[in-house]
C-alpha cells in the first residue's frame, strides 16, 4: 500500500524510494531506505505533510512524495528485549 493510505500509529516497512533522483537522495539522507521500519506519527489535514518516526528521528514528508512511497504493514512492536 501507499504511505498516504496508512493511519497514524501504524508501524510500516518502507518498500520503495521516490522516483525523482533528487528526492531519493534527500529521503535516503534522513535514514529512509528500502526495508527500514518506520511509524506514522501524524498527518496534517488537507493533503498536508506526514510526520514519520524513523529509528528515533522524526521526519516530515510532503504529501506528494509520501503518496509515491510503497510500504507494508509491520506488527506493532511489543516491549522490546534489550
Amino acid at each position, binding site marked *: 500500500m501507499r504511505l498516504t493510505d496508512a493511519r497514524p500509529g501504524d508501524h510500516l516497512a518502507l518498500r520503495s*524510494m*521516490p522516483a*525523482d*533522483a*533528487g*528526492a*531519493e*537522495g*534527500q*529521503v*535516503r*539522507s*534522513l*535514514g529512509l*531506505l*528500502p*526495508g*527500514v521500519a518506520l511509524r506514522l506519527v*501524524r498527518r*496534517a*489535514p*488537507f*493533503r*498536508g*505533510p506526514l*510526520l514519520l518516526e524513523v*529509528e*528515533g*528521528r*522524526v*521526519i*516530515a*514528508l*510532503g*504529501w*506528494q*512524495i509520501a503518496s509515491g512511497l510503497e510500504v507494508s504493514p509491520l506488527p506493532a512492536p511489543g516491549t522490546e528485549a*534489550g
Partner: protein
Amino acid sequence: MRIALVGQPNCGKSTLFNQVAGYKAHTGNFPGTTVVYTESKVRLQGDVVDVVDLPGTYTLAGTNPAERVTLRYLASTDVDVIINVLDATHLSQGLDMTLELLELQRPMVLAVNLLDEADRLGLRIDGPRLQRELGVPVLPLVASKGRGVRTLFNAAFQAARNPQPITRPRYGRDVEDALAGLADALRGTPTPLHPEATALKLLEGDNELAAETARTAPALGPLAAQAQRHLAERRGQPARWVVWGERHGLAGNLEHLVVTQGERRTSWRDRLDDVLLHPVAGSLALALILIAFFQAVYATGNAVEPPLLALFQAWTSRLHASLAGQALLDSLVIGLLQGLAGGAAIVMPYLIPFLLGLGFLEDVGYLPRLAFLMDALMHRLGLHGKSVVPFILGYGCSVPAVMSTRILENRRDRFLAAALSTLIPCSARLVVVFGLVAAYVGPWAAAAIYVLNLFMIALTGRVLSGMMQEESPGLIIEIPPYRLPAARSVLAKAWYRVREFMVEAWPALIIGSLVLALLTFLGLTRWLDLLVRPLTWVLGLPAATGVPLAFGILRKELSLVMLGQALGTLDFNLVLTQAQMITFAVFVVFYIPCLATLVVLRRELGWRAMASVSAVATVVALVVALAVRGGLLLAGI
C-alpha cells in the same frame, strides 16, 4: 593548520564552532557556489589554526551542492584534520556519515555531542569501545555548555600533527569485489578522492564524479556501469541501494555495540508536539507565536527608531549650518548622512531584534515545525513548507529573505520563493504604509494594504508556479527535538547576518543617497519627473511624485522622505487626496525591489532572475495600483 567541522544538521556543530570562534569569524562561499562556510582563527597549543564550520549535511552522496562541495573540500589537502560531530541521541544516523568520512582516509577525530540530552533519554554511550571499533579518537562533548571543547581540539591538533592510518569500513563480499575491480582500474590515474572512496562513489552512481574520472580514464565509465549492473542483478535492487543499505546496517550494528538504553525520563519536550503540531491548536499557537514575535520586533524598533532619527536629524542640521555657502559639499554630506541614517536608524532597529528572535526560534527547533504546519498552505502557492522562512524574513528586510532561499534544494523553488518574498513589505516599506496611509487615512486602510498584499502574493505564486512546469519534490525535512538555545549561538548568528547586511546592502543604500543628492543639486530631478510622468499620470498621482518613486528603487523608505521634499510639505493632507495616498503606498509596496535587494538577487540567482523578479514586481505593482485606484474611484473615495 586547518580543522574542518563536519556533521549532520542539528548535531550542534555550529554551537561548537561558536564556542571557539572570535567575532572576526567570517562567512564565505565556496567558489562558484552558494554553499556557505564560516571560518575563524583559533589559538591552539601556542599555534593559530583555522577552524572551518562546513554546512550540515546528512551524507556525502552529492545529491545537493553542499554535499558535493563538502566531499571535495574534505578530500583536498586544504584540510589537515576533520572533526566529525555526532548527535549522541541519533548515533546510528550520524555514524552512517562517519563511515563515509572514514572512506576518505583523512585524519579524523569524532566528537560525540549532546551527551546531556542522551543522558536524559537514558542512553549510555561506550566511547572507548567506539574508538576501538573505528580506529579514530572518540571524545565526549556538550558543546552548548562548552564541556569537552578544549580536549577535543587538542586531540584534533594531535591527529593532524601525527596522522595515523585510517581503516575504511568493510562491506559485503560482492560489494568489495566490485570495489576492488574499480579501484584496480583507477590505479595510476589521479582521482579526486582516495581511489577506494572514488570507486565506492562510482558504484553509488555519483554522476559528477563519474564525468570527472571519465576525462582521465575513459574506460572507467563502462566498467562502473557494468559493476553496478552485476551488483544489482545479484542483490535484486539498484547498486546504490545496496551500498547505502550496507553502510546503514554497519552504522546500526555499531550503535548496538556501543549504546545501552537505560530508563528514559519523559519530559515536557516530548509532549510539546502534541500541541504545537496539532492541526487546530498548532495553527493557533503558530499565530500567537508569530504575533508575539512581530509585536516584539516592532515594539523594539519603534522605541529605538525615533531617537536615532532625531540624532541624525540634529547632526544633519548642524552640518548643514556649518557648510553654508558650499552647496555641493553640503548636499553630498547630507546625502551621505541620510544613507547612514537609513541603515542605522530605520533598518537596524528592526533587523537586529528580528534576527535575534529568528535565531531563537531556529535554535529552539521551531522553524521545521513551522514548515510542517505551513506546508499545505504553501502548496497553494506552488511552493512547500520550507519556503515559509524567506517569507517571514521578508517582513524584516528583503536582503536576508533572498539569502535565506539557499535552504531550498532546487532552483525553481528558490526563484519562486525569492520573487514572492520580495513582494512582502519589508520594514522600509512599512515606513511608507504607516507614515502615509495609517497616519493620514487610518490604521484600517494600512491593515487592508497588508491583507491585499498577502492575497496578491498568493495570486502571483499561483500564476508563476503555473508557468514553471518543473515539479518540486516537496517537503522533506527533519523535525529536530526541542532544545534550549545557547545565547552565544543566537548572538553569533544574528551578528553574522547583520554583518552581511552591512557589507552587502548598506553600501548600496549610501551610494543611492549620494546619487540622489547629486541629481537634486544638479537640478535634474525635474527631468526625472517628466520621464516617470506616464506612470504617475496613469496612477492619478501629481507629477512631483515621479522622483520619490524613481528613488524608491534606491531605498524604499526614501519614497516617503522624498515625497515630503518633492511636494514641499510634510502635511500630506494638503497636497494629496486619500485615494492618491493609498495608490502611492500600494505601488511602493509592490514595485521593483530596492537596489540592495537587486544586488543580492543577482549574486544569489543571476542576472536573468534579477530581471525577471523586477519585471514581475513592476507588473504586479501596476495592476494592483490601477485596480485600487479604480476601486477607490467607484467607491467614491
